């Protein structure tokens, strides 16, 4: 029985069984119908030592190809400072549960309070919760929240400029939750204001979800959106990239009621899609409908400043089927991750990240157009990612990049490809990528 994670000696087991008053460990399952007890060998590998486990994963890792990343579309390769892994691997954070006992959880509670303070700063909103699973599920929660906050309405409108994975997840939640969805098309790379007005005029709209930066990388101009939605007594919801909010106009400034998105862009590793950290923020009018954990400041009996989970009456353990959501956790450790990131970066660091990304992205954008292999898809402002119309077959372009160890030119729509540049990418890197792409042009000429 000796195994590193089981501390029991045979003598321990004997003594414990004696105290309980049974003969054997099997007797502890005497209440279980004997025909459901599984007596066969489990179809699992033999137990491995740590050394063998390491070897196993090293071999598995060899089946992956780490590529130089020029892709965005909801997962961004920003630089993660060395400090962060050291902080988040502290076991007092890592191995704690949800902070139910505030007296011994002030570490967790305080960083969540800091996280809330920072997210509200970036979004320009009054309140946020302690984080959500990811951006797509945060968007689904935002949509359900708009239904709960407006009462007696049946429809929510989504911009087609939202990332496809966000639309798919919202559609799934809406389908089972009984929410009718309408789509607002894009016009020249941005959510169509005219189409919004038409849809709103049809009535019964609880909320409208639009991207701050859309799937084409275009920064949406949301002038008049809030007024139009509010005129119909609906809520304006914006899906945002928090990193970008250090420089672009905030959802708060656009007049949004609810803001959601994924904070992965705040230095969280790509990690094949998770763990990331969604966020959901709102104006103070709607805080009582905000799902998930929320931390508030208070004092203890001695008057010391302290923090505690608050507004819990909204939550599933109290309201059960009447809760605003079934969420009963947050991505706490990832919230710590982005809190440490924002602390290190500060307002100037985050601006610098955006300036570097903007500079690199625009350099690549302009040089790609110069190759003659691409055309502008839209003439709209962008930050770190953009979409071009490819004049060479997209598959050929992607294969060539991949052969040279580069991941980019993901197809957003037929013939339209995405590129994303962060501060991790240098001019030398981009010149090398441009060289690879230009080789396609000389081949095409040779073929012609």
């Amino acid at each position, binding site marked *: 029985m000796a195994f590193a994670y089981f501390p029991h000696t045979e003598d321990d087991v004997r003594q414990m069984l004696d105290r309980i008053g049974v003969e054997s460990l099997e007797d502890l399952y005497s209440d279980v119908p004997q025909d459901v007890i599984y007596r066969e060998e489990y179809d699992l590998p033999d137990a491995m030592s740590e050394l063998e486990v390491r070897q196993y994963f090293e071999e598995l890792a060899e089946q992956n190809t780490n590529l130089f990343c020029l892709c965005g579309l909801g997962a961004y390769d920003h630089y993660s400072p060395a400090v962060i892994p050291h902080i988040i691997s502290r076991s007092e954070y890592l191995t704690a549960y949800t902070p139910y006992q505030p007296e011994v959880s002030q570490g967790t509670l305080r960083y969540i309070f800091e996280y809330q303070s920072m997210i509200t700063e970036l979004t320009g909103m009054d309140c946020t919760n302690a984080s959500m699973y990811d951006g797509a599920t945060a968007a689904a929660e935002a949509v359900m929240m708009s239904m709960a906050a407006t009462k007696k309405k049946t429809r929510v409108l989504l911009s087609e400029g939202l990332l496809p994975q966000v639309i798919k997840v919202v559609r799934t939640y809406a389908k089972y939750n009984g929410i009718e969805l309408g789509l607002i098309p894009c016009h020249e790379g941005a959510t169509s204001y005219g189409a919004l007005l038409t849809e709103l005029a049809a009535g019964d709209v609880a909320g409208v979800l639009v991207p701050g930066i859309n799937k084409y990388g275009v920064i949406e101009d949301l002038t008049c959106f809030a007024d139009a939605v509010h005129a119909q007594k609906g809520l304006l919801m914006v899906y945002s990239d928090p990193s970008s909010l250090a420089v672009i106009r905030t959802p708060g400034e656009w007049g949004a009621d609810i803001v959601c998105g994924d904070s992965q862009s705040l230095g969280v590793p790509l990690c094949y899609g998770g763990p990331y950290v969604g966020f959901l923020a709102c104006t103070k009018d709607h805080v*009582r409908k905000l799902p998930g954990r929320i931390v508030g400041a208070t004092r203890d009996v001695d008057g010391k400043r302290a923090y505690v989970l608050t*507004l*819990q*009456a*909204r939550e599933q353990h*109290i*309201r059960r089927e*009447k809760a605003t959501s079934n969420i009963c956790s947050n991505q706490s450790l990832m919230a710590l991750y982005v809190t440490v990131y924002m602390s290190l970066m500060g307002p100037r660091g985050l601006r610098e990240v955006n300036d570097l990304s903007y500079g690199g992205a625009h350099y690549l954008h302009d040089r790609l157009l110069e190759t003659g292999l691409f055309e502008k898809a839209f003439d709209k402002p962008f930050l770190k990612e953009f979409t071009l119309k490819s004049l060479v077959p997209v598959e050929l372009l992607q294969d060539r990049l991949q052969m040279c160890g580069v991941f980019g030119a993901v197809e957003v729509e037929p013939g339209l490809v995405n590129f994303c540049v962060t501060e991790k990418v240098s001019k030398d890197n981009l010149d090398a990528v441009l060289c690879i792409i230009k080789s396609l042009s000389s081949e095409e000429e040779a073929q012609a």
Partner: protein
Amino acid sequence: MAKTVEGLYYSESHEWVKVEGNVAVIGITDFAQHAMGDLSYVDMPEVDDELEAGEEFGAVESVKAASDLFCPVSGTVVEINEALEDAPELLNEDAFANWIMKVEMSDPSELEGLMDAAAYEAMCANE
């Protein structure tokens, strides 16, 4: 022992109704506030909301509990007690002095289906 007030109507879901002409003044009972503990929030309807008898119109919340409020009579909300927005503890201090909303009744005969103080006390004794 929670107190009751004579001359009011009571619902099974612990609301009281005081009739002023065609207007029903509605609040929660002392029994209810006592069961909830320190109240932290009162979710109230909006003026002009139309409510059916038995329809949910809001909720009261304490730190560890929440309870929905049900309208004992049908009608239109004509006034809400805005003082409760900032001071939900008023309901703890005196649940009968602090009403939650006033409803212009559309069918005052519905009052007949509610309890008087004695019947309500008997019901609470069994809870």
